[in-house]
């Protein structure tokens, strides 16, 4: 293994553990933040879709009402 001459001696386990944990936590945090952002987007899309359904139903009702009105 051609590692390195001139690196400081390896950190003792309890300090090293903190750095390793930090690195893996950063990784986890990135993924979870992304999931949170996607969740927000998804709820917005759901809301838009619900609104669309409502608007379409409203239009349909208006058209039906117009058809029912007597002409004369």
């Amino acid at each position: 293994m051609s590692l390195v001459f001139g690196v400081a001696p390896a950190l003792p386990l309890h300090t090293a553990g903190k750095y390793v944990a930090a690195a893996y936590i950063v990784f986890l945090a990135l993924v979870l933040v992304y999931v949170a952002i996607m969740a927000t987007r998804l709820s917005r899309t759901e809301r838009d879709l619900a609104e669309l359904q409502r608007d379409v139903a409203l239009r349909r009702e208006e058209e039906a009402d117009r058809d029912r009105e007597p002409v004369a």
Partner: protein
Amino acid sequence: MSIYGRGLRGLALTTVATITVAFTLVFFYAPLDADQGFVQKIFYVHVPLAITALCGFVFGGVLGAMYLRTGERKWDIRSYVAIHMALIFGVGTLITGAIWAKASWGHWWIWSDPTLTSFLIVMLLFATYQPLRFSIEDPERQARYASVFAVVAGAFVPLNFIAVRAAQAYVHPRVLTLAGGNLPGSMRLTFLVSLIGIALLYSTLWKYEMAAKSTRMRVRALRRTLLGDDAVAPLKRSAAPL
């Protein structure tokens, strides 16, 4: 139009499984490094992130080239998402790299590792991708210019690494990377599984993002068809591809 959600569940589950196995191997199987000790374990998350990010940028360039060739909008969106994801993985690379540098060398940033330096340059370049996109208002022109950028920047990635590596190879020893061929078998296996896991993560997130975007676009298109053009609110950031 493609359905990006198809197969997404299977892909996501495979990703979860692979990453779980990978991290188990990292902490329970891979041997302790003789020189760096426990800190070396960061290698298993940092390097796969780096490799995936770089491949993501090149992938974005390929997708951009497809847009230039076919003119179909979907390629441009795919390219945008690929680069966006690669940028996120790149940020992860830089942060985990800094943590590793601090732990093994005492400084948050070191110039003597050519990979970190090359990476910084690539990130500086791709950080201009979104400002560029959002400063062009016409959507077709935006897509075209972004694709040109993606192609040029994608080609830049390997060249940059060659140049930086040449600049630093004989001045300092390479501190943070284990020479490729000299990894003992158990470490190599762990690394490979990690790499595959993170590559799968990239693919899953890419597909996920494409599914979300294409759904938004379809809702807008539906709204436009059913209710007319004025019922559709303009996008917040001018000409952002959703």
